[in-house]
């Protein structure tokens, strides 16, 4: 009884953001719902999170799963907004012997069953390496770079910055025009930063946005100023089909790097666990370079072309 009560409490707390939306959108599997998988999403305001939800729902249709987060669950999938916030709840669930799989951003405890997420540092490095290649190759890269930060208080922004600079800092020819300017992951703020940057700098070669909407916002600012042709390369991160990939296929962004949502993989791993298999402690989702060459394939696969 006590355990049931606790679960009710912790799961409602953790899942507050989605409880309203999920039950209607996620129809319980028809006949034999064998497992109950609790899923907590931190916000549905960002397009990447929406894609995340779509992925996990699509995957859930393949298994006899039921999403009932206010009742006793067999396994809990949690996606926190920031690391520290959900640690307590996750620990309580673990104390109650419920396996917890943490998705995308980790919590501050080593005891979790599994962590699945992309490696922002690796993605930043991939972007940095590609940027150096675009600007003339290792050792001879030349160019003025505008970097637009994501939210300053978030770990992914720092990782995407550090990874990028691991490559570009080695190039003496690369000059950084902006000093830690944060667009807070938002298209409109990146637009305003870029508007001023364009006034301030006559030659901009490459824009690196910590996500696609910001890179696109910067592109729009350049276009409105009539200078989109002068800027040779625009790189983004995330690679959502209806955002980054679309913009890449239109030639508005040069390339984007996939930051895969752990939705589908998370559910696959949960099912594996429920079938009694053992899980690896960490699964890192690989990134992928998306350019004009493979963009249309991805769009076709997602039914957008």
């Amino acid at each position, binding site marked *: 009884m006590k355990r049931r009560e606790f679960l009710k409490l912790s799961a409602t707390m953790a899942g507050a953001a989605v409880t309203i*939306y999920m039950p209607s959108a996620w129809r319980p599997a028809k006949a034999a719902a064998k497992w109950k998988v609790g899923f907590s999403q931190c916000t549905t*305001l960002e*397009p990447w999170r*929406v894609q995340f939800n779509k992925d996990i729902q699509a995957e859930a249709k393949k298994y006899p799963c039921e999403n009932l987060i206010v009742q006793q669950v067999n396994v809990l999938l949690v996606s926190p907004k920031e690391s520290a916030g959900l640690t307590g709840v996750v620990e309580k669930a673990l104390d109650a012997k419920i396996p917890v799989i943490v998705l995308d951003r980790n919590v501050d405890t080593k005891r979790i069953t599994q962590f699945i997420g992309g490696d922002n540092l690796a993605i930043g490095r991939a972007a940095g390496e590609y940027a150096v290649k675009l600007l003339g190759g290792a050792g001879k890269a030349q160019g003025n770079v505008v970097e637009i930060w994501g939210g300053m208080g978030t770990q992914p922004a720092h990782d995407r910055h550090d990874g990028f600079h691991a490559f570009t800092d080695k190039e003496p020819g690369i000059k950084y025009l902006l*000093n830690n300017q944060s667009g807070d992951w938002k298209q409109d703020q990146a637009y305003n930063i870029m508007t*001023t940057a364009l*006034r301030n700098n*006559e030659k901009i070669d490459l824009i690196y946005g910590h996500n696609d909407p910001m890179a696109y916002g910067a592109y*729009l600012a350049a276009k409105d100023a009539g200078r989109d042709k002068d800027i040779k390369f625009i790189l983004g991160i995330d690679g959502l089909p209806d955002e980054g990939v679309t913009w890449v296929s239109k030639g508005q962004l040069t390339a984007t790097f996939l930051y895969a949502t752990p939705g589908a993989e998370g559910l696959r791993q949960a099912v594996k666990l429920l079938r009694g298999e053992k899980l690896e402690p960490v699964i890192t989702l690989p990134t992928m370079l998306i350019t004009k060459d493979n963009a249309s394939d991805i769009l076709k696969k997602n039914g957008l072309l």
Partner: protein
Amino acid sequence: MKVLRAVSRTKLYWGLLLICLIGALASPHSSSGNNIFLSYGNLTDVLRQVSITGLVATGMTMVILLGGIDLSVGSVMGFSTIICAMLLTKSGWTAASIMGVPAAVAVSFMAVAFLARFVFSGLASGHDETAGRRREIALGRWRGMWIPILLGLAAAVAVAWFTTNQVPTKFGVLGVLLVAPCVALVLGAVNGVLIVAGRLQPFIATLAMMVGALGIARLTAGQDNAVVAVYTGTNATETFEVLRSMLWGVVPMPSVFFLAAIILFGAILRFTAFGRYAYAIGGNIEAAKLSGIKVVQVQLTAYLLSGLLAGIAGVLFVAQYRQGKPDAGAGLELDAIAAVVIGGTSLMGGRGSLAGTFVGVLIFGLLSDILQLQNIDSNVQLVMKGLIIVCTVLVQEQNLGQLVARWRFARRTKTSAEAETAEPTRPPSAAKAQFAREHLDEAS
């Protein structure tokens, strides 16, 4: 003293000038040697960037003058961006058009009907021989009720015809400029009714709307859309680009809306009875009630207009940034309040002006432009903005004349204490009182 008083009264403008001066001196120069800060392009960029906050701050000023506050403007603006973006990109009866068309019809009916009545009563009062009679009685049945209702119905039918015609295809510029602000106005009206009829604290009522409108916006956009992207020329009409173009190549279109709102509502606040009532209510609501001011009407109107302006800001947001999203206005209410406060409007109500708000918005915009041109770290920028709010309000709250009077008075009492032997008959406290009478009068 006269000069000092003049300076003290206009210190906000001197502050603006000072910021411009700092900007010009610190500005980087382009390769051709031009001052970037002072370049026409940069200044219009600033004007463009402050327009959205500025429109919202205009409505906020009226609400704050009444002693209220409107926390919901950010969410209402977000809702408006969603309505606008969906109307532009989706044809047929979507959630946006199902809400938008009736809202526009209802609002146009009410607006035209009330306006007609207002005009009639204005005309009638000009001929009114027996001053002091209530206008409702003076107007009579036809001009008081039937003609306004008929005119309102005519307007409603016209709007209904205009909007439903656009539903099967997608909405055009005029369509969204009509519908999205009307929907926002309805939310503003809900705020007003909650505050006026429900006797809720403005803080509570608009806080509830702030949370609620965000939810409504997300429900409207649908589970699968965190962002509604607008690609003019592809999935939306190309004429929509008008709203971010430069008008005659001189003024950015968003600023035209902002300047028009400032001038219109500035004139209303300054020269009309409504404006006088607003100040009276903000100054002392009980006294205003007792002197026969229709407090309820004025309050309702203020919240309604605040919603309307947030709605227009939403349309401009979509035009500028090519997307509608529920959280488009996150934090906007605080920016607007900051601009209003910098402009010298008292949060207690009854004191302030739209001219001040205009300058406040500009100070904020210019400051962030200067910091951006100086390429200052985003985190430092936040600190600087906080400092500016504190400093300007500190300076605003001090009356320079009084400060000088106090200083001179301190010096005088000191010298008079030294000269006490010469003038022993006059106790210092009397001298103090005498001095204060002479000088504080002059200062205020």
